[in-house]
């Protein structure tokens, strides 16, 4: 028998649980359901699922609390589902250690794509701890050469500056995942550059002018409005 990935869905709305179960089981996942935060917590600790889908608005506790608790001892992939469309909540969840977020209302295909990315990503990072620091990242005709500190597009050197390369390298390391503005700022410019992400935005605009054919319709680095940036996944 094949080994299926086990997904824990923490969600209090019955009809959403129903359709999630149907969609996930149809796509060959084992599904566990939790109604409340306390139930979820005991399932997480006893069953150790491969991925957790967490609704932030639960009847008995704030989903953020579960996120924080789990992150103290495990790096299992957690995809946050939230009805709050304010970007602040997404950023807070990502900074708290969520792997990805998806905003209600969402389609199943979108959710399944996020699940695949999150599971795959946790596995590759776990398998190769130093990933991204050496070797190359390839997606189509876009290549990051970590050893030479160069980015090539269609074989040509994109001539990125030092900081621009650092940003691209960081996004490449976590390709497929959203990196919040704050996180990138801290990684590149250090912890003292607080709250003003304008310098990052301008750098990104310049990077796009160097690597994208049309900077307004990027193919390699995507914008998550109000949250951060996401790089396309490697081939």
């Amino acid at each position: 028998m094949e080994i299926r990935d086990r997904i824990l869905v923490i969600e209090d709305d019955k009809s959403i649980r129903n359709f999630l179960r149907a969609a996930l089981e149809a796509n060959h996942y084992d599904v566990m359901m939790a109604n409340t935060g306390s139930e979820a917590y005991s399932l997480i600790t006893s069953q150790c699922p491969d991925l957790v889908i967490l609704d932030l608005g639960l009847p008995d506790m704030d989903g953020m609390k579960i996120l924080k608790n789990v992150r103290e001892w495990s790096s299992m992939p957690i995809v946050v589902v939230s009805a709050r469309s304010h970007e602040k909540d997404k950023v807070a969840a990502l900074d708290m250690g969520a792997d990805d977020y998806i905003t209600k209302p969402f389609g199943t295909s979108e959710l399944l794509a996020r699940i695949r990315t999150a599971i795959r990503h946790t596995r590759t990072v776990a398998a190769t701890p130093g990933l991204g620091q050496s070797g190359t990242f390839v997606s189509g005709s876009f290549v990051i050469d970590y050893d030479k500190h160069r980015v090539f597009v269609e074989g040509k050197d994109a001539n990125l500056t030092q900081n621009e390369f650092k940003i691209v390298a960081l996004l490449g390391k976590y390709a497929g995942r959203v990196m919040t503005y704050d996180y990138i700022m801290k990684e590149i410019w250090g912890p003292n550059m607080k709250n003003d992400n304008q310098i990052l935005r301008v750098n990104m605009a310049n990077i796009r002018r160097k690597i994208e054919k049309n900077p307004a319709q990027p193919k390699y680095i995507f914008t998550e409005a109000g949250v951060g940036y996401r790089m396309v996944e490697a081939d």
Partner: protein
Amino acid sequence: MKEKKKKNAIWKNCLVTTAIFAIAAGFCFLLQRVASTDTHVPLIFVLAVLFISRYTEGYVYGIVASLLAVIGVNFVFTYPYFKFDFTITGYPLTFLAMLAVAISISALTTQIKKQEQIKLEIEKEKMRGNLLRAVSHDIRTPLTSIVGSASAVIDNYDVLPDDKRLELTKDIKEEAQWLIRIVENLLSVTRINESSANISTNLEVVEEIADSAVQKFLKRFPDAEVKVNIPDEVLLVPMDGILIEQVIVNLLENSVLHGETNDITVNITNDEQAVFFAVEDNGRGIRPDVLPCMFEGGMHTGESGGPDTRRNMGIGLSVCFSIVKAHKGNMEAENRKEGGARVRFSLPLQKEQNYGN
């Protein structure tokens, strides 16, 4: 913050009061040289009190001003000059009358101002009511269809052929997506109202906003083709990114739903004062009879009948319009000479600058 504002208001009101008194006094001094009697003096000061009550807030300044005027006129401008004298025949009565007139004028003007405010509130409330009515109308249609299709599938599950079942479920999905669009627009409206007239703006890179809008749009309309042209320089514009994204998504959706085309171009240009977003398509264009009132909400197209009134475009556009207005920008629509529609809006580059009207 609030206390500071209050202090500022008090300063402003005091300044207005003194300025008007100074003008009135100066006028009296001038007239004193020409005229032989003092009878004009009280009248001029009553006028001054009227202006003061009109241009300050609340009753206090007007009443204080009228008292000051009574004392000042007696003291300075009437015989005996620079001395109080209430004993002259008729004087006490004259000044009592003046006090009464001044007080009632200031009370009246304040009342009128308050009434104007109430009128404005009512107007706002009316607009909100209209929007709500239009929205409920727009929501009822897809809801009916969802309930109908769903119960058709459930009740006739064994009888219905597979393709029919699929068709009905597809309808349910489509209608639900339409509802999502409406709700998102409503959320945008509450986002504007949240902080009254002012929206909270951040500096955003225009191409990022345009791109995320296009991505969001393409998720719903994968067949559409959108081209985005941007200026060479990196433009940082103060805006509420989520709201402007909503505006662009709405305009793109209108091109597909009402222009019935899949070929859309977004042109972004700028001059020194503002950045301009133009959404252009090669579709059916905008009906000339809708053109003048299309930003005013769904009330106009709602009852007129016709094949495409079920999907009311008024709400999306009126939301766009109020978002752009809240950014102190402008919005206009026209039919292109080459065919199709062009909707253009501008955002000022500087926060303080008041672009357009």
